[in-house]
């Protein structure tokens, strides 16, 4: 299967498939039914971060020093946690200002400076070259390796082949052609490449599946699981130190931390990451899923790196090229299909990177480097050309070819002396130079154009001197003496130990110095002179992007004259007549004005609108220059701008405060209303209580009064009758006493003035005593009382008299409602999960479900509704529940009508040992 024509055919078939996907997605986008408007596609497209570096290089890095491949993925995970704050802001800014690239973003922030955009572009192109050469190296190396099948050779001499047989060159040219087809078929006003994004998302799936496949095969096919591989490594004296690599093969902690920081910057400022994350973003909301899905992707693609690396080291003890283990391991076992899958996976990783990176870079080269220069050359008379779209596409295509050829050149000059990851890290360090200007730009209004320029240039210079020069020197394109003795023999300026600082690895050394120079110059120069008018305006637009209401974007700040027809013609030259007409029609509809072409004088709003449309095609800096050719702008003074801006931000602050105040007021009103309702309710309850109590008191009082009056008025009553009446009077008096003492109990309970005398009590005794004291009642009503008490129960802590009161209440309640003669009441005691539980079960009429909560309220009885006559005060159960709850337990009823009721209460058990000790302590 692994013969040249199959490999070549499959590779082209794969590229063809990618193109088909892209074509389909573009068609769908034109039809207005985007396929990429999904957070999942968005997350997958971010995974363009994983390139041939990840696919081949991570294993090589891991085989060299164990953990060194990890910070490249852990750094982005940490950075992405901050995206909710940082990236959302960048997204919002970019959408409002129609940003087309990273260079455009930075140039736009610092007063639409064409110079700054150009500098960023140059840094990005030069900085990314090593990274592109890495992809070319990986693809051509994997191709050469596969072609040697069934032999396994180290592709060390790939670069030495004659020009026509040079795979890397062919790879570069084919990729250039492919990218041109992909990214520059037509010009999109917003630099959206939906087809490309769809293809990239697909590639992310392919490389993940391919890598997982080889990982699973190495772990469980070649060896028998992770444990097996690591056990063999531990048994191997050469490899064993790699299991705890820090401080040894893995380098020290500081270089690890610097790699993490470097990767944190890279995930934001690599041109292709900026392209897929910001420019191609369809919806800010997609960020939410991507923030955790993308790190998950990185975790998944790294799980098998160590097993493959160690598997390769164990399998090829002679020391094969670790960067190609992923491929050579399946080949050595004649796994042809798997090897082919791996090859395609590597191809997808590399092509994805190259496509997006070169498209992003070519946009920058066109919009921020070539166009501003061309537009300034009056001799070219570009202003008068009717249609410039062809020119724009031509520049971009040329840039793509140029960038790939330069990448190839770098590969020829310096690529072979380094492993994949070391090449890539040089590019990471280059794009990290954008961090101070870009991050500073969105959080700090004080950053100026000069500051950004100074920072970028000095950081880039240090990078060039400490990373790029040594790379050339190592490849013998420059004298090695430069590294050993410094330029002109000045030891202090040795590129690898600047100012005598040695002992750091190369990347850490370069990062420390370049970041120091970059951030230092940015801050110092920014502070040395106040920002100009344009800078101040743009700074406010960027930093306060969330504070401004949508729609107002500084239009008022333009003062000048331009004719609407000129503006229309200008736009038409860059986007075509039809698109310009549509844009103006949209504008008219949105603002509710007549067709703006009809106006003679354009207002500031229209000028701004045209500038934004232009910026979408040729970048902010170029658009600014173009606009200057048709408008006569009168310079605003700095003070005027300041005044307008300050006024605007004052108003924003005031209205913000006002809003807060009114919210507070509303909240306070709500609280007051609630409190008022509670008070009214309490008042109503108090009235009800008083009227109920007086009613309950009047009933026995009336009885007593009428019977005593009878006795008083009729002294000749028979003795038996008199006896009976006196009995009733005594009974009613008792009831009155009981009622009053219960009302007093309730009042004490509710006000918290109840006195509690807690002691350790034995519930068995309590129940026995209570049963004895209520036996008279039971006999009267011919009800049987059964006791089921365990021989011994732990004591509980409670107020003895109150608990007796509860038990008496429950027993007398049970008796009260039972039909005399056939009644049976059972009182039981049991221990249950840290509580002592008392059950009083009767076979009376039961309590209907709807009354089971009511009966525990004040003055509520089930009895008066069932039988029509009151059987008690209606306070007993209420008081009992309060007493039990005060002792830390619960009182409730379970009942089904007709089957009797069971009242239960619990009391918490106490730790007697602890109590005993406490008592002893007190006694001593």
């Amino acid at each position, binding site marked *: 299967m692994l013969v040249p024509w199959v490999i070549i055919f499959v590779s082209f078939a794969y590229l063809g498939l990618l193109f088909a996907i892209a074509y389909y997605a573009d068609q769908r986008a034109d039809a207005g039914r985007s396929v990429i408007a999904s957070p999942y596609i968005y997350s997958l497209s971010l995974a363009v971060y994983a390139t041939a570096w990840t696919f081949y290089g991570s294993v090589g890095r891991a085989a060299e020093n164990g*953990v060194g491949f*990890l*910070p490249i993925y*852990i750094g982005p*995970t*940490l*950075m*992405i*946690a*901050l*995206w*909710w*704050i940082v990236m959302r*802001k960048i997204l919002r800014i970019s959408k409002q200002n129609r940003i087309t690239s990273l260079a455009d973003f930075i140039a736009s922030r610092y007063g639409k400076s064409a110079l700054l955009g150009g500098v960023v572009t140059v840094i990005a192109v030069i900085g990314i070259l090593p990274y592109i050469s890495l992809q070319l190296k990986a693809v051509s190396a994997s191709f050469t390796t596969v072609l040697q099948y069934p032999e396994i050779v180290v592709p060390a001499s790939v670069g030495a082949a004659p020009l026509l047989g040079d795979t890397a060159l062919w790879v570069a040219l084919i990729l250039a052609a492919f990218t041109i087809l992909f990214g520059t078929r037509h010009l999109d006003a917003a630099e959206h490449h939906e087809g490309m994004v769809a293809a990239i998302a697909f590639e992310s799936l392919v490389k993940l599946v391919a890598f997982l496949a080889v990982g699973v095969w190495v772990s469980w096919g070649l060896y028998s*699981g*992770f*444990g*097996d591989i*690591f*056990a063999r490594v*531990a048994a191997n004296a050469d490899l*064993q130190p790699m*299991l*705890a*690599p*820090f*401080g040894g093969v893995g380098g020290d*902690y*500081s270089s*690890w*931390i610097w790699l*993490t920081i470097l990767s944190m910057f890279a995930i934001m400022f690599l041109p292709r990451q900026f392209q897929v994350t910001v420019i191609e973003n369809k919806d800010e909301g997609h960020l*939410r899923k991507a*923030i*955790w899905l993308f*790190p*998950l992707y990185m*975790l998944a693609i790294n*799980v098998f790196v*160590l097993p493959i690396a160690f598997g390769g080291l164990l399998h090829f003890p002679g020391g094969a090229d670790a960067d190609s283990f992923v491929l050579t391991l399946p080949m050595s076992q004649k796994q042809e299909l798997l090897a082919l899958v791996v090859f395609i996976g590597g191809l997808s990783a590399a092509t994805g990177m190259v496509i997006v990176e070169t498209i992003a870079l070519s946009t920058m080269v066109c919009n921020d480097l070539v166009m501003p220069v061309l537009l300034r050359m009056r001799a070219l008379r570009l202003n008068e050309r009717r249609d410039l779209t062809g020119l724009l596409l031509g520049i971009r295509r040329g840039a793509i070819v140029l960038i790939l050829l330069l990448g190839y050149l770098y590969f020829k000059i310096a690529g072979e002396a380094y492993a994949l990851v070391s090449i890539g890290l040089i590019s990471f360090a280059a794009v990290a130079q954008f961090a101070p200007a870009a991050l500073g730009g969105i959080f700090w209004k004080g950053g100026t154009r000069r500051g950004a320029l100074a920072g970028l240039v000095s950081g880039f210079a240090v990078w060039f001197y400490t990373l790029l020069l040594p790379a050339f020197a190592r490849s013998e394109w420059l004298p090695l003496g430069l590294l050993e003795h410094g330029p002109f023999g000045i030891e202090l300026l040795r590129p690898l130990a600047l100012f005598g600082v040695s002992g750091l690895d190369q990347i850490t050394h370069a990062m420390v110095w370049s970041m120091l120079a970059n951030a230092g110059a940015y801050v110092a120069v920014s502070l040395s002179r106040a920002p100009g008018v344009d800078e101040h305006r743009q700074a406010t637009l960027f930093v306060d992007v*969330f504070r401004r209401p949508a729609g107002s974007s500084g239009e008022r700040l333009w003062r000048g004259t331009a004719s609407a027809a000129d503006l229309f013609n200008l736009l038409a030259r860059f986007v075509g007549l039809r698109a310009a007409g549509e844009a103006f029609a949209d504008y008219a509809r949105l603002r509710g004005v007549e067709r703006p072409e009809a106006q003679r004088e354009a207002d500031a709003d229209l000028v701004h609108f045209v500038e934004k449309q232009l910026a979408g095609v040729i970048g902010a800096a170029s658009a600014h220059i173009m606009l200057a050719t048709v408008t006569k702008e009168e310079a605003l003074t700095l003070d005027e701008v300041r005044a307008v801006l300050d006024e605007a931000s004052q108003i924003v602050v005031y209205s913000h405060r006002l809003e807060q105040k009114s919210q507070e007021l509303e909240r306070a009103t709500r609280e007051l209303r609630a409190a008022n309702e509670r008070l009214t309710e309490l008042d109503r309850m108090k009235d009800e209580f008083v009227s109920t109590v007086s009613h309950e008191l009047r009933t026995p009082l009336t009885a007593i009064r009428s019977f005593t009056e009878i006795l008083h008025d009729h002294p000749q009553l028979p003795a038996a009758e008199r006896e009976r009446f006196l009995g009733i009077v005594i009974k009613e008096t008792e009831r009155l006493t009981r009622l009053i003492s219960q009302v007093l109990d309730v009042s004490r309970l509710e006000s918290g003035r109840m006195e509690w005398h807690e002691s350790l009590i034995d519930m068995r005794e309590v129940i026995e005593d209570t049963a004895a004291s209520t036996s008279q009642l039971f006999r009267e009503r011919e009800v049987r009382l059964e006791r089921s008490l365990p021989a011994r129960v732990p004591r509980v802590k409670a107020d003895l008299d109150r608990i007796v009161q509860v038990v008496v209440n429950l027993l007398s309640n049970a008796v009260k409602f039972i039909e005399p003669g056939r009644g049976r009441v059972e009182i039981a005691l049991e221990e249950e999960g840290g509580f002592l539980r008392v059950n009083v079960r009767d076979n009376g009429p039961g309590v209907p479900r709807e009354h089971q909560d009511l009966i525990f309220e004040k003055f509520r009885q089930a009895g008066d509704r069932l039988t029509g006559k009151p059987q008690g005060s209606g306070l007993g159960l209420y008081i009992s529940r309060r007493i039990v709850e005060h002792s830390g337990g619960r009182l409730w009823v379970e009942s089904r009508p007709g089957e009797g009721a069971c009242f239960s209460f619990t009391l918490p058990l106490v730790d007697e040992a602890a109590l005993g000790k406490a008592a002893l302590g007190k006694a001593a």
Partner: protein
Amino acid sequence: MEQFDVRGQRLAALCLLGLVLFSYPVLAVFNVQGTVAGIPVLYAYFFVAWGALIGLIALVIERPD
């Protein structure tokens, strides 16, 4: 929409947590010979801590307001 909402602060805290988890001296604690379920201690730590961090991030960001 205020820029420094609670969710942003929680995520920033997780970023700091990650920086602590993956730098000296915490890494030094796990930089020892020995295995956990057949996996070397340091490598097991990396992947477990990394996975947990992603889980926490997902939890914070997907929690409804």
